[in-house]
């Protein structure tokens, strides 16, 4: 019935039939794939379940994957169907090719498409914003003044009920300071399980990014900035730590493993660290939100600037950077009782 160059003979199928066939294939595949993606793959998606923030991210990954699945399937099914059914040989001589139907648009289809994509997008936006609010930034670095903070948050270390851990990025290692434990600085990250933690991430030189992979924490370490991220740990286990922002030659070597321990073990460990470093602590600078680097090493404290000349029009010497007591030779922070562990 068909001559060379004429369409593969589907002329008797109506538009509606094509829509039904495509829709059916798509629906069947969706019904198979969606549960697999959300219920089987979902619980195994990165970053896992080791903290509440990581669990929220995993949930978000699963939701997005579930929404993406029908989209992928629709486009693949459609293109596959079109190529199979509406194809003519590629080397058909030009004078034997018949043009297709002159369909310039279809209002119903276009409106449906725009409506569905808009609703999906707005829905995702609302979902993610809620998740950020509920999980206090969902593990991301939320800047100096986060708008969603857990109960017990305070801008002053003394009043904070969260475990404060300052993550100091430098070229090319991480160190950690615990202002609630005499401002001791350690080479390893150890956290208690079941604890609301506030990471104060900063850098001494260039931009790094503190990425605790299985805790779901990622916060850029910027010099001169205190980037706050919240996480609530769950169970005992290791913590994979990476640097996620190119910071120079050994960016790839800034990888280590931390540990989440029970509260008792953490207490033992941190006290051991304080004892081990008790001669060092006085030599450390006073705990502060950030430490402005200086070319020849050491720290820059604007409060130590000489006052400008009287008639220079410059303001008087600025006070020391936000939130901290004036630096003292002993360098210790006024210690607070250790933060209370939150229940589950």
């Amino acid at each position, binding site marked *: 019935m068909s001559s060379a160059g004429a369409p593969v003979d589907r002329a008797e199928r109506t538009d509606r039939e094509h829509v039904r066939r495509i829709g059916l294939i798509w629906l069947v595949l969706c019904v198979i794939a969606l549960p697999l993606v959300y219920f089987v793959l979902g619980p195994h998606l*990165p970053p896992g379940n080791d903290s509440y923030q990581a669990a929220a991210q995993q949930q978000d990954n699963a939701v997005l994957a579930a929404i993406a699945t029908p989209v992928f399937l629709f486009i693949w099914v459609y293109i596959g169907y079109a190529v199979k059914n*509406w194809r003519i040989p590629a080397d058909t001589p030009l004078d034997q090719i018949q043009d297709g139907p002159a369909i*310039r648009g279809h209002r119903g289809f276009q409106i449906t*498409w725009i409506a569905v994509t808009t609703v999906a997008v707005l829905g*995702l936006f609302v979902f993610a914003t809620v998740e950020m609010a509920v999980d206090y930034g969902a593990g991301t670095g939320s800047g*100096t003044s986060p708008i969603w903070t857990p109960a017990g948050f305070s801008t002053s270390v003394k009043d904070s009920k969260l475990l404060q851990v300052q993550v100091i990025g430098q070229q090319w290692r991480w160190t950690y300071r615990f202002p609630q434990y005499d401002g001791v600085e350690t080479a390893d990250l150890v956290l208690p399980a079941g604890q609301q933690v506030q990471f104060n991430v900063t850098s001494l030189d260039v931009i790094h990014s503190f990425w605790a992979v299985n805790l*779901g924490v990622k916060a850029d370490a910027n010099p001169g900035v205190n980037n706050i991220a919240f996480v609530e740990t769950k169970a005992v286990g290791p913590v994979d730590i990476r640097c996620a922002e*190119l910071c120079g*030659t050994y960016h790839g070597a800034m990888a280590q493993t931390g540990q989440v321990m029970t509260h008792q073990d953490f207490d033992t460990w941190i006290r051991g660290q304080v004892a081990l470093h008790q001669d060092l602590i006085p030599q450390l600078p006073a705990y502060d939100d950030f430490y402005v*680097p200086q070319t020849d090493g050491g720290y820059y404290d604007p409060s130590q600037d000489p006052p400008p000349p009287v008639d220079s029009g410059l303001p008087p010497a600025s006070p020391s950077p936000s939130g901290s007591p004036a630096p003292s030779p002993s360098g210790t922070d006024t210690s607070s009782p250790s933060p209370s562990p939150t229940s589950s």
Partner: protein
Amino acid sequence: MATDIAAPGVDTGGTPEPPSEARTRRWWRRSGLPAAVVGAVVGYLIGTYLGTWVGQDNQQVQGMGHNDFAVTLGYLGGTVGWLAGMGALTYPVQKMLGHQPAAEHEHERSLGRYFRYTLDHKVVGVQYLVAMISYFLVGGLFALAVRTELLSPTRHLFPPGKYLEIVGEHGTLMMMMMTSAILGPFGNYFVPLMIGSRRMAFPRLEALSFWLTPAAFLVLLSGLLIGGFPAGWTGYAPLSIQATQGQDAYLVAFGLMAISMIVGGFNIVVTVINYRAPGMTWTRIPLFTWSMLVTGMLMSLAAPVLVLGCYLSLMDRTVQTALFDVEHGGSPYLWENVFWFFGHPEVYILALPGFGIAAELLPVFTRKPAFGYRIVVAGMVGVGLLSFFVWQHHLFVSGINSDMRPVVMLTTEMISIPTGFIFLAAIGTLWRARIRLTVPMLFILGGLFNFLIGGISGVFLSDVPTDAVAHGSFFVMSHFHYTIMGGYMFFFFAGLYYWLPKMTGRMLNKRLGQVHFWTLFVFFNSTFLPLFAIGELGMPRRVFEYADSLQALNMWVSISAYLIGVSMLIFVYNFLKSTVIDPPSPLPANPWGSRGLEWFTSTPPAADNFERIPTVVSGPYEYGTGAGPMAVFRDEDLMQPEGVS
């Protein structure tokens, strides 16, 4: 306007014109490639001398043992000398001095005109094509070096510093040099033909935009010889301020390419607005031309910000301003914001031309009108507009004001709506079509498949909680390789296979083209699909060490990458064989049976494109409507009552 280059002796098809004063000069006194090389060397030496003199007593320079003034001024001087030798400055200087500029003749049909500063947009298009393919292949070699290093997490092939230099060169070559990979060759070549114009609005700017690219390319590659740059293609300060002299090469090269983008894009915008033939209304402009228009606008508006960023960084590195230097009051966020304000429109500069080609070719190979023409246009314009409001999604975890994040998340999610319109158009155009799976069509379908994956993975990145996992990891890498290589480059190849018969009168071999497509498609996906998983599992970008558990996946990816290289070799072989080695075989003027106006010129088109400016009577996608040809060239044909829509 047309009289500027229609000087006496215009060639209308092969008659030799009497040699003019300009032609009789000896080859070493004429502008051209030899003079450009000499100019580059002289300019480089002058710049280096000047920079040494300025900087040598500087304390910082003495401590470093390297003089960034000398390096920067050397590169800039070399570029000015290169352009001067090429003849780019002749006309402006003569005009400024009040002289009558010499008439330019470049209508001889020799191979030499491809190495000259030419005002013929078609020659510039071919120059761009060869150049872009070369830059792409060189960038690809660097990619293979990266993948070789990543075969093992513990055994290191390159020293870590050199590895970062290689990563940076790969990224910068691709993102910087290849920005005009579609606009340069196909935009410059075909936009005037598609709108029925004899010429571009600013032919000299167009040629300038091309001749800046070899300069930028050489500057960038030479950076490797002076220590390379450790900051990747994104060049974050303060790391870029700390880096040794190779970073100057990056900053200068990027600045040069930004200028190339600005002038090239601006030229296209003005041409499309002002040089349309009679009857070429806004609703009859081909969709490819629309994409070039929006891309040109983005280039003109976004690239100046990049020039600013590069300039500021160079200032910080040389005269020690403190814009990015925290200890003296600068901000580490400044570069991120300035760069990504350019950087985000940049990626849409990469995406839109691909959409344009897809929208342009689908009607031809489905024999149907473009479905939803106005929606596609709205989509392109919407993407272009919105692209200026989303850049902060690159800074989600950087500690920016946390009030901003939901806002930027919303705009970024919203930009996926107009992006989806190209898929809407594709679906509608394929409906009940007469699909011919020619090689260009294969690349279009493959490109759509890849871009879908790339686009959806972008949604994961636009969502802050999922971005927390993916930012700075190989997930991001895979996302942009899918959109840029899987989308943009696949569409580039589609355009190449499609338009080469018009540009050169040669068609690329079909069998080899099919092998090229299938090998590229399969190996591209096998390379980049696992990278999504690798990134989510905790491998950051730009690292030379990684967790042992990820070695198997990395080895798979590396081997796949080598196979992509093999696919590219097949393409190169096909390209050389079909265009250079094989003798030409007779080819119909319109081998694909397209309605587009560009196919109704001779092959290759005459110097002035059209003998007479055509009058456009119908759109380019009127398949199946019984409309006649898109344009008429003779007044008599205008009188025809039928066949005119």
